C-alpha cells in the first residue's frame, strides 16, 4: 500500500504546522465575519425584500405584456430563489447539518439540494392547484394549509434524524464487535487516492437519496405560495407556476453551493486531524460519532423549526 506523502513520517510536523496555521487563520476569519454579521444579515434581508417587490412588479407586468416580460420574470424568480435561500431561515441548516455529518458524496449533496428545492416548488403548485382551482378554498386557507404541511415536513426531518441516530448507533456497536475484521477488509478498498478518514460507505442507493431529499423538501415554500396566489388573483396562474419553478431552481443552486461547501469542509476537518497511526476502526468510530451527532442535531433542528411553524400557524392574527 502506497502512503500519501503527507502521511509519511518526515512530513508529519509540516502537516501539523499547516493544520495549526489553518486553524488560526480560520479563527481570525470567523472573528472578522462575526463582526460584520449584523450588517451582512441586514443586507441579505434587504435584498430579499427588494426581490420580493421586484417579483410582484414583474408578475403584474406579465399580466399586461406577457411577451415582453415573460423571460425577465423567470430571471427575477430565479434570483429571488437564490437570495431567499441565502437569507436567514429556510431550513437550509437541515441540509448542511445532514451533509456535514453523514457520508454523502459531493454529487449526492448537489442532487439532494436540487431535488429538495424543486420538490418544495411542486408541493406549493400542487397545493394551490388542488385547494384553490379544484376545492375553491379561500387564499388564506391555502397559506394556513401550507403552514400545516410545513409542520409535517419538520416531523419528517425529525424522523430522518432519528433514523440516522439509530443507524450510527447500530454501526458503532457492530464495529466494536468486529473491529479486527473490518480493519482487515478496509485495507483492501482503501487506495492511495482516498485520503478521507471516512470509510467508504455502501453507496446510498438512489431510492434512499430520493427519500432524504423528499423528506427535506416536503415543505411548500411560503414565498412560492404567495407568488402563486398573486398570479392567480391577477389571472396569470401559469406564469406563477413558471416563476415558482424558477424560484425552486434558484433555491437549489444556493443549497447546492452550501452542500458542496459543507462536504468539502467536512472532508477538510477530517484530513486535518488524520494521522498515520490512526486505525480504521477509529475512523469508523469517528464516522459513527459524527453521524450520531448529526442525527441528534437534525432532530433538534426539526423540533425548533416545528415550534416556530406552530407558533406562526396557531397564533398569527394576519395569517
Amino acid at each position: 500500500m502506497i502512503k500519501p506523502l503527507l502521511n509519511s513520517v518526515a512530513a508529519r510536523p509540516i502537516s501539523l504546522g499547516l493544520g495549526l496555521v489553518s486553524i488560526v487563520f480560520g479563527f481570525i476569519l470567523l472573528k472578522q465575519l462575526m463582526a460584520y454579521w449584523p450588517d451582512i444579515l441586514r443586507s441579505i434581508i434587504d435584498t430579499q425584500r427588494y426581490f420580493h417587490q421586484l417579483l410582484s412588479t414583474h408578475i403584474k407586468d406579465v399580466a399586461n405584456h406577457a411577451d415582453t416580460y415573460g423571460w425577465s420574470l423567470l430571471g427575477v424568480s430565479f434570483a429571488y430563489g437564490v437570495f431567499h435561500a441565502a437569507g436567514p431561515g429556510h431550513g437550509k441548516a437541515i441540509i448542511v447539518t445532514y451533509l456535514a455529518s453523514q457520508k454523502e458524496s459531493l454529487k449526492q449533496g448537489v442532487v439532494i439540494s436540487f431535488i429538495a428545492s424543486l420538490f418544495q416548488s411542486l408541493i406549493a403548485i400542487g397545493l394551490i392547484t388542488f385547494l384553490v382551482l379544484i376545492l375553491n378554498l379561500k387564499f388564506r386557507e391555502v397559506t394556513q394549509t401550507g403552514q400545516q404541511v410545513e409542520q409535517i415536513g419538520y416531523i419528517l426531518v425529525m424522523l430522518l434524524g432519528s433514523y440516522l441516530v439509530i443507524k450510527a448507533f447500530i454501526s458503532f456497536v457492530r464495529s466494536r464487535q468486529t473491529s479486527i475484521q473490518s480493519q482487515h477488509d478496509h485495507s483492501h478498498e482503501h487506495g492511495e487516492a482516498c485520503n478521507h478518514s471516512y470509510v467508504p460507505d455502501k453507496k446510498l442507493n438512489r431510492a434512499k437519496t430520493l427519500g432524504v431529499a423528499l423528506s427535506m423538501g416536503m415543505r411548500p415554500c411560503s414565498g412560492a405560495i404567495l407568488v402563486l396566489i398573486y398570479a392567480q388573483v391577477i389571472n396569470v396562474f401559469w406564469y406563477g407556476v413558471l416563476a415558482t419553478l424558477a424560484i425552486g431552481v434558484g433555491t437549489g443552486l444556493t443549497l447546492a453551493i452550501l452542500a458542496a461547501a459543507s462536504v468539502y469542509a467536512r472532508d477538510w476537518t477530517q484530513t486535518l486531524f488524520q494521522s498515520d497511526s490512526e486505525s480504521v476502526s477509529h475512523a469508523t468510530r469517528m464516522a459513527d460519532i459524527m453521524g450520531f451527532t448529526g442525527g441528534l442535531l437534525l432532530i433538534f433542528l426539526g423540533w425548533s423549526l416545528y415550534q416556530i411553524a406552530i407558533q406562526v400557524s396557531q397564533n398569527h392574527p394576519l395569517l
Partner: protein
Amino acid sequence: MLSKYLFSIIFIISLSSQIYAHPHTWINLQSTFGLNENAELIEIKQKWQFDEFYSAMFIADMLNEFGPDRDLAFTLAGENMVSSLSDYQYFSNLTVDQVGMSIGQPSEYLLTSEIVDGAEMLTMFMTFTLASTPNIKDTQIEWSVFDPTYYVAMIHTDIENLAIENGQNSGCMVNMDIPEPSQETIAYASSLDKEQTETQGLGILFAEKIRFGCL
C-alpha cells in the same frame, strides 16, 4: 483523540446554529405621536401598509367573502382585522421608563387601500388615544412595532415615517434605532423564549426602537 471528536462535533453544531424564522410579508409603518401643550404624549396614530402579495390575497378573499360592495367589504374585514390584532396588542409596544404601558383599543380605525406605483396596497389606519399621558421630556419613552414570530416584517424604514404632532414648542425630536442583532442577542432571545412563550420567535431582534430626544 478526544479533542478530535470535540472539534468535529463543534464543527457540526456551528453549521446548524443558523436558524431563524424569516419574513414572508412586509408591512410599511408610519407612526405619528400626538402631544398636548405640556409635551405629554396623548395619542399615537399608526398607518400600516401591507405588501403587494398580501394585499392582493387579502382583497381577493375579502371581496369573495363580503363583496361585491367594496366599501362594505373593507368595513367588515377591518372589524375582523382589528379584533384579531387586539389579542396581540396590535404588535405595538410602548414603554415608559422601561415599564410596559397598554395602548388599549384604537379609538378610530379604517381599513382601505391605496394605489402605489399602480398596485393596490391594503392599508390600515389606527389611532390609539392613551389612557395615561406620559411627558416625553421627563420620561424615557420607547416605541416599537413588531411581529414576534417575524413571519411579518414591520418596518418604518426611515425617520420620515415618524412624526410628532404639536411638538413645535417641545424641542423634541424622534429618533429610530435600527437593530443589529448579534450572535449574543440571538442567543439571549432564544433563552428568553423558553420562559416567556409569548415572546417566542426572533422578531424582537429585528424590531426598530423609536425614542425621543429632547433639548
